[in-house]
């Protein structure tokens, strides 16, 4: 883990703040009594980056976000924004804004008043702030709803109001806490595209918390994968997908097959766990010959799950473990078999990824 930029390894010298970073966390820990929500996390987010914090619930990603926003303080370590130590600084003094998971729109104010809230508390006069609010609502294409109340809006519309409200202050960093969780699939995909294009247009640093690996992969420039309060791997989406370092990352990002060290020894000759993507596995007939340089194993086909564009073939190996192969709809290569039948799986040696653990 020590050769990935932005992630300090254990045993390294104390990390030094770098001058161009928008956000830096230096050896940050947050304990709640006996529970360690964050354990010595360090990361650097550069200006203008779309950065994702990815992980299952309880992994510490939301805690991390709250520390950047200022709603919480670390029990150890420092938080820097633009090179300045903001560890004790309250949220209203930080140039960071947040889009909340439940939108947190004030129900007793209209949409325009909600958006104008930031300028209002900084003392802007009524005319000016209304103008600014309408500009922002234009940006998210909601000007026509300026005088409605939040109760009259749909989920997607509330989302955009929350976005406009956060952006009006021209923050250096925008934090988004699982903002699309409550939307249905189609709307979510729409919003993902919109958010990405907005970020690129405005050039603001986005820090995006999500548990949905698909979302993170499609939107982020870099992703930090959280697990039990620590960053397991920090990389670009492609690197995470193609070269996961641990079994956890392999399974969490892209649901790869993870073959344990013991079984790996029999199949490859090396006693180290590896990951292999379902789409890299070919399903051959029971006694088919292996292509040159391929690794293979035999098993029984348990069932086939149809997912439209691909099908997932679940094959049970003699030692009891399950491997999943993906087959594209309409492909003509590969054997056909029915559940219960024996098959042979093959993949090239280059496509397997050696893992640090598992």
């Amino acid at each position: 883990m020590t050769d990935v930029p932005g992630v300090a390894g254990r045993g390294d010298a104390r990390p030094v703040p770098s001058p161009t970073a928008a956000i830096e966390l230096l050896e940050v820990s947050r304990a709640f009594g006996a529970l360690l929500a964050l354990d010595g996390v360090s990361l650097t987010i550069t200006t203008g980056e779309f950065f994702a914090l990815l992980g299952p619930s309880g992994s510490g990603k939301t805690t991390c976000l709250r520390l950047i926003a200022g709603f919480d303080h670390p029990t150890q370590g420092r938080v820097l924004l633009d090179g300045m130590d903001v560890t004790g600084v309250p949220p209203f003094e930080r140039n960071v804004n947040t889009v909340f998971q439940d939108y947190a729109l004030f129900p007793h104010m209209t949409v325009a008043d909600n958006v104008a809230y930031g300028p209002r508390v900084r003392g802007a006069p009524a005319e000016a702030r209304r103008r600014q609010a309408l500009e922002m609502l234009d940006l998210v294409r909601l000007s026509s709803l300026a005088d409605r109340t939040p109760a009259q809006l749909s989920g997607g519309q509330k989302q955009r109001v929350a976005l406009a409200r956060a952006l009006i202050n021209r923050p250096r960093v925008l934090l988004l806490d699982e903002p699309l969780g409550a939307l249905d699939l189609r709307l979510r995909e729409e919003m993902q595209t919109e958010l990405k294009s907005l970020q690129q247009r405005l050039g603001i640093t986005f820090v995006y918390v999500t548990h949905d690996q698909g979302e993170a992969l499609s939107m982020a420039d870099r992703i930090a994968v959280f697990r039990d309060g620590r960053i397991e791997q920090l990389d670009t989406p492609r690197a995470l997908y193609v070269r996961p370092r641990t079994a956890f990352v392999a399974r969490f990002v892209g649901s790869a097959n993870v073959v344990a060290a013991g079984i790996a020894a029999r199949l490859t000759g090396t006693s180290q766990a590896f990951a292999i993507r379902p789409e890299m596995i070919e399903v051959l007939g029971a006694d088919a010959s292996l292509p040159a340089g391929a690794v293979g194993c035999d098993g029984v086909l348990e069932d086939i799950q149809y997912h439209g564009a691909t099908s997932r073939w679940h094959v049970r190996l003699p030692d009891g473990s399950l491997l999943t192969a993906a087959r594209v709809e309409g492909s003509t290569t590969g054997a056909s078999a029915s559940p219960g039948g024996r098959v042979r799986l093959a993949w090239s040696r280059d496509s397997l990824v050696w893992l640090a653990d598992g």
Partner: protein
Amino acid sequence: MRSRRPWNSASPGQRLAAFAGLAFLHFPVWVILLYAFTTEDRSYQFPPPGLTLHWFAVTFAREDIWAALRLSLAVAAVATAIALVMGTLAAFALARSRFRGREAITLLFVLPIALPGIVTGIALLSAFKLGGIQTGFWTIVAGHATFCIVIVHNNVIARLRRLPPSWIEASMDLGADGAQTFRYVLLPQIATALLAGGMLAFALSFDEIIVTLFTAGHEKTLPIWFFNELFRPRERPITNVVAVTVMLVTLVPILLAYWLTRQGHADEQT
């Protein structure tokens, strides 16, 4: 054998019992209303021989009744004012915090209404005697303010607990400090709770008799005036009119408070 009613509807007997219970709860109040208009002034004869508004005029000409009324209103106003400030402070402190001793403090805020009024009354009197404090306006206020604080606190804390914490965070995130967040976000939200709590406190203070009898000394609030009349009913019809007045003065704020809390609940469904 099996009746043909849908299985989860009430039998006629059950329905009758329910309405009978409700009627039982209501009829004494209606009786009082009726008696305020009776022409008979010497006994509680029923049915009343005639109806008149005469006694209303007589009652509102009485100076001692006005004096008692003024005292009751003054005490209620002061006690409510104290309660609004203290109760709100306490509600903000206790709404979401976790600290050692919180359970004990919550218990302290339940005691004034959990223990019977007589305990509060005699306890206050013991304290006054021990401390050599003279009974009078402020001792009455002291007793009333104590349970009024609890009432306001209960109303406000219930409202605060329903407030999503993300609203406060969002306000601060957008640049508002504590005072601005209170003014722009919190106050509009708890306004109905404050109003409801305040009116409830006012009504209960106005009607208070149990503790007041211990702490009033020689002062006469309207309930005390009324209580004395219970034992020496010199002019029954006037007492009846005062009863109706007290009833209205206490019932109206309470109904308003109830309506406000219901409205508040409805408004929160965003």
